[in-house]
Every structure is written in structure tokens, then in C-alpha cells.
């Protein structure tokens, strides 16, 4: 899994590439913890290049969104691929984590 961090207006974006599974979730956790420790107010995890998320990966995303909520910060997901979208939809993830189709939408939603 490759994770690239960049700034986008008021948000931090993590572009993730590869599968998000039990064996490599520590890498994403480390990257998110680093962003969170700098008091980031809006983190967008871009899943466009993520082909597969297993149950552990899903749990990690929910855990991270809960910890951002506790800090009154926003945690958003961007452009999940079809299989990942199906897994998320079956687990009602969209009820807990906002999922956006474009980065612009994610940024606007936070500003609104």
C-alpha cells in the first residue's frame, strides 16, 4: 500500500493506493495518526486507487472517523471503487462517514 499526503485548501488528503487489509492497515493508521496529531480539521482519505478493503480495513476507517468526531474534526472518504463501495454500503458506512464523489464536493461540504 502506498500513501501520499497532500494539502487541498483547508483539508489534508491521503491518496491511498493498494489494498487496505489486516496485514497493512498499520501503515494507514500511522499516516492518519500523524495528520491528527497536527490538529487537522478535515481529513479526506482518497480511496480511488484502493481495490479491496477487508473487515479489518473497514473497522480501521470507522475507528478513525470516530476519533476525528471526538476532536470535532471531519473525516471523509473519497471515490471508493465499486467493490469497496458495495462492502461499505452493506455495512451502512455512509451513515457514519460521509462519502464524496469529488474532492470539490468534500471540500465544499466541510465549508458549508
Amino acid at each position, binding site marked *: 500500500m502506498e500513501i501520499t499526503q497532500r494539502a487541498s485548501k483547508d483539508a489534508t488528503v491521503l491518496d491511498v493506493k493498494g489494498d487496505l487489509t489486516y496485514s497493512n492497515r498499520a501503515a494507514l493508521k500511522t499516516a492518519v495518526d500523524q495528520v491528527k496529531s497536527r490538529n487537522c480539521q478535515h481529513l479526506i482519505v482518497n480511496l480511488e486507487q484502493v481495490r479491496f478493503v*477487508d473487515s479489518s480495513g*473497514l473497522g480501521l476507517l*470507522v*475507528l478513525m472517523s470516530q476519533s476525528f468526531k471526538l476532536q470535532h474534526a471531519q473525516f471523509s472518504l473519497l471515490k471508493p471503487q465499486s*467493490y469497496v463501495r458495495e462492502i461499505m*454500503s452493506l455495512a451502512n458506512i455512509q*451513515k457514519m462517514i460521509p462519502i464524496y464523489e469529488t474532492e470539490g464536493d468534500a471540500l465544499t461540504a466541510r465549508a458549508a
Partner: protein
Amino acid sequence: MNFESTQSPVQSFDSLAPSCLMAATILLVEDEPVTRTSMAARLTRLGHRVLEAGNGREALEVAKRERPDLIIVDWMMPEMDGPTFCETVRRDPTMKSIHILLMTSHDQPAQIAEGLARGADDFLSKAASKQEISARVLAGLRTGRLVRELETTSSQLESSMLLLQIKQMEMEADLQSAAAFVHSLLPPPGSPAPGLSLAWEYQPALTLGGDLFGVASIDADHLGLYILDASGHGVAAAIRSASLMTFLRVENILHLVGTYDPEKVLLEANRRFPLSEEGEYFTLWVGQLHLPTRSLSYASAGHHGALISRTGRPSRWLTRPSSPLGFDQAAVFANDRIALQPTDRLFLLSDGIYEAASPTGEPWGRWRFQQAVEAQQHSPLITTISHCFMEARRWQGQSNFSDDAAVVGLELSV
């Protein structure tokens, strides 16, 4: 401060030598007394403790007793010559790594080759200058010390490896015992109630599995069934799963909830099993079959592995979007109902089987599982289940699953 020496090279070499390297014990083996005394004096001046022997046999006794750091041995000696002495030392496990310098009057290539082949580490010409002798002795001591350090490290590594292997064997035995216990909690295949037959196949990713299932009578008219899936795998997942399995025991649920009504069971489980600090959680599917009417009520907390396969009618997945346990404390879980018919088969399966990935990373998928089940509609239940495992293994191109794989089948007889 300037440390540069102003002494001549010869003086500095002799005077610095003992401080560069700790004083060592050197065994000098030479039958000719004048040469031996002169060399011994030189080595003593270098700060070393010098032991002397007049021939090879005597030298072997001293070497065994004193374990010198370095041996300087003459080639030509009565009784046992230098090369034979070297061979003897090399054969002795307690002395084999002592550094040996072989002294010769001549330095012909053929002789040097023979000396090295028979166990000498280096050569020292009897005509060598004082500086050369000092340099070769120092080099020999340095090498000898490194060899001893390597031997110590290697022996420590071997002991550590042995200890690790023993620990690993103990741990594996513990895991096997825990796995046998968990296995004993799974429902026995056969007939859990009149008119029903049960079969299953289960392959944990490791010795201990985190995906478990249960089928048990609630009362004379009702059968309770569930499949749970712990996120992650390994020992931690297995322990968490065993605790949820204990919670789901019929008598416990009746005591805590008062009924095995699936939505109420999930509500209580959601309250008691929050998302762990590591983000681990469960998905759970619970069903209750009313035996007289064959009516199945069921509810799911994020578990999507329940399929009804029926003769002459389309298969149907018994699931809908729902939150896994612990994701949302306010979540509610609604029951669904289905009237089962004789010959209907209910399959409960873990995601370990339908997420089995092909070498290119594509999951096998629930759709292919359904096809595999439908293709074996008329085979005995256990054959159908085995067929699913075979197809999933073929898809992933390997026998072992990376996640726990379980398929449970329940068939209503005619």
C-alpha cells in the same frame, strides 16, 4: 591537542604494540634453544606472557592446559614436526581455533602451501625482521580474538535459536489445545432437530479461528442458529470470538434477553461488544427457525453470508445493509422472515470463503459461491459444501485461505 607521534617508526611500533592489544599468552614451540630464547625475549618485550616448549608433543600438553591466544611453532622439530602439530591442534575441538604461526627457514611457495593446507594460519620466516615479527604476532592475535568472538556469538545464537524453538513448540501446543476446545464448541454435524440435517466445513487461516457458528435447540419448537465473523484473525480474534460465542449460548441469551428473537439478540450484542481500541469488531447473523411452520426469522449486523438455495426456485441472499456490532450504538436491527420449504438449503458462510482472492486480486465473490451451490443442488449437502471449498481453492490457486473460511449447511428434509 596534537596526538601525532614524534618517535621513529620502529620505536613507536614496539612501544605502542602492547597498548594497542591486550597482553596475550603466546606458546612458542622451537627445539633449538638459542632461537627459542631470543624469540621469547622479543615477545616478552612486546608485553606478552610467553610459554615455551621444545617439541610438538610437549607443546600439545601445554596448549591443552594453558589455552594460549597464539602459537608460534617451528616447522622442523624432532618427534612431531610443525605441520603435524598444526593438524593435531585443528582436530581438537577445544583448541581448533587457536591462531598458529608456522616458522620456517625458507619461504618457498610449495612449502607455504603445504603448511597452510595442514592447518597453519600464517608464516613467519626465521629471518624476519623485528618489525615483521611484531606485526605478524599482532595480526595473528587480532584475528584469533575475532575468531573467538565469532564463536561466542555463534554459540549464543544457537542457544537462543534452541530456546526460541522450544518456546514456539510450547506455544503451538497451547494453540492446538485451544483450537481443539473451540472445535468442541461447534455444533456436531448430523440432525440438530427432526427433519433437519446439518453439515459444515471449516478451515481457519491459522490454528485458531475467529469465525464461528452455532446451531442449537431453543425449545421443542425453535432452533437458534448464528454465524459470527471477527474482523482480523489470529489468536486475539479467536479469543474475542469465543467470548461472543459464549454470549450467544441459548441459556445465556434466554437469561439476558428473555428470547432468541434475532433483532433483540443483535441489539443486546451491539450494546455489549463495542468497537475495540484497535478497530476490531464482529459481524453477526442470527436466525430462529420455528420448526412446526418452517418459518425462519433472521437479522444481521453487517454479516452477509446467508443464502437460501431451493429446488426449482431462485436462490436468495438473506441479508440487507446493516451496521456491524459496535459501529453505531444507536443502531437497530430489523427482523426479516422467510417461509422455508422441504429440500430448501440454508447456507451460512464466512467472508473468508467469498473474499478468497485470485492471483490477480479479484475476490471469488458471493455470486460465484451461489453458482457453485446451485450447480450441486442435488448432491448430498456435505458434497455441495466440499465443492464450494474446492472451487474457492481453485480460484485462489492455493489450498490455504488467508482468512478463516467456513460454510455451514442446513437442509430441510422432505
